[in-house]
């Protein structure tokens, strides 16, 4: 913690607890998390150990598409809202401590590896803005020729992002006095999302406007675009895509990438080294999130509307569906406990977060939440590329 202990104690003493929520004198944040309540623009503060909601933060604006990252000390959350709002939330006082409407329309963000910079990916006007993580002061404004997607943190105070309209892929280096922006190359037509592997080695970009996935080797000094899965993606013969898949959950497991097909009810498996397809798994619907259960061979998948009341579990060794769960209506997101023991699942239309034991796959508990979508545990603070 950066703040001296005395100052922190004083702050906590003068802060009055919101009615109905217990506020003990000392709180650790390592097992806390925030759940986005998309319709009300609020965040539910949850305690993983207690499997309970312990507070609510309000006034976050339009959270119809929202995500967040955490400061390295797991005290502050940076929330990226649809309406261009960037909010800094204090997990201890459960208050918005800084907020700026930094664009007309934004899609996501990332925090630098040293925790000093917060970058936001914007649709309108298109581009990336970089802020001081303490004050939310604007440090850099990098316009783009369209909507920016797939913004990720790259080690060394860097960020990578991609432009939906042009296919351009950029690497921004913010370690020096002035930002150094490099055009890495072109991913292809209408890249819809991108993700960085957990070892920060490969930046993978999914295409919507043509077939294929494009990879950049970020360990290379001069990375070149490598296109693979050239029959991957959507064509007019394919099924309608009622929700864009998210690549942040692309699972990296058993030496493979597990990718959501676009316009097919399938998961595609690709060898991490050769980038060759190794198999396909038929699933319940259009996959949205495919997330690896930590420390296990399993991946969990949810689906686009109207088939979004199901979650499936797949064994990455056999690539077979080993479990089909129906946790509730409109399942939007899944978040694992950092060591994989539990998965928290949001059911928007049942207004609940459902907690499952990953070994028995039995439900352990439920928490009431108002139209919950994304679930974010503070342990994300220590993961690259989130």
């Amino acid at each position, binding site marked *: 913690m950066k703040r001296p202990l005395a100052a922190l104690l004083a702050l906590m003493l003068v802060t009055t607890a919101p009615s109905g929520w217990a506020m003990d004198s000392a709180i650790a944040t390592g097992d806390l998390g925030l759940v986005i309540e*998309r*319709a009300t623009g609020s965040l539910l503060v949850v305690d993983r150990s207690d499997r309970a909601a312990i507070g609510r933060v309000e006034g976050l604006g*339009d*959270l*119809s*598409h929202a995500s967040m990252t955490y400061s390295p000390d797991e005290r502050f959350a940076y929330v990226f809202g*649809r*309406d261009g709002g960037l909010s800094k939330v204090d997990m201890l006082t459960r208050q918005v401590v800084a907020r700026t409407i930094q664009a*007309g*329309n934004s*899609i996501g963000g990332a925090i630098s590896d040293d925790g000093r910079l917060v970058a936001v990916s914007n*649709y*309108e006007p298109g581009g990336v803005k970089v802020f001081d993580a303490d004050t939310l002061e604007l440090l850099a404004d990098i316009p783009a020729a369209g*909507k920016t997607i797939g913004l990720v943190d790259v080690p060394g105070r860097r960020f990578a992002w991609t432009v*939906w309209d042009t296919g351009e892929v950029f690497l921004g280096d913010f370690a020096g006095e002035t930002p150094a922006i490099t055009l890495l190359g072109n991913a292809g037509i*209408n890249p*819809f999302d991108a993700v960085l592997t957990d070892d920060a080695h490969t930046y993978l970009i999914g295409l*919507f*406007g043509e077939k294929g996935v494009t990879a950049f080797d970020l360990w290379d000094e001069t990375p070149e675009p490598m296109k693979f899965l050239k029959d991957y993606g959507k064509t*007019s013969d394919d099924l*309608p*895509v*009622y*929700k*864009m898949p998210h690549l942040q959950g692309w699972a990296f497991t058993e030496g493979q990438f597990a990718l959501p097909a676009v316009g097919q009810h399938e998961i595609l498996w690709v060898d991490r080294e050769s980038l060759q397809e190794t198999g396909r798994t038929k699933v319940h619907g259009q996959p949205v999130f495919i997330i690896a259960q930590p420390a296990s061979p399993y991946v969990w998948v949810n689906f686009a*509307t*109207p088939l979004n009341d199901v979650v499936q579990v797949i064994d990455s060794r056999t690539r077979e569906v080993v479990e089909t769960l129906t946790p509730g209506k*409109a399942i939007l997101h899944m978040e694992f406990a950092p060591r994989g023991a539990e998965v928290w699942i949001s059911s*928007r*239309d049942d207004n609940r977060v459902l907690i499952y034991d990953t070994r028995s796959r039995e439900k352990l508990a439920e928490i009431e939440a108002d*139209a919950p979508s994304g679930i974010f545990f503070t342990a994300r603070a220590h993961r690259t590329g989130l």
Partner: protein
Amino acid sequence: MPRLAALLPAVLLAGLAPAWAEVPAERAAALEHMVIQDCGSCHGLTMKGGLGRPLTADALVHADPDVLALIILDGIPGTAMPPWRPLLTEDEALWIAEYLKSKEPSP
């Protein structure tokens, strides 16, 4: 006056929504939920836009409801707008078009 009493609700309803496509109230509530939540994924919960274009009443002031209904039903090829025909009837698509055009702006 049993006859008048029976007529009144119909008159009131007709007065409220004279030109709207006929969709039962329960289905209309489900459609409104779908517009806000599922359309909102791309167009924003407040319809101010996202990956998809803004769909506020202001943005649609010159749009023909029948054309909007067709776009909803058949999508726009070459874009991320999917065809919703598998999930909606033509009346329901028209109801959504009229709903969007008449929606009060969000604060």
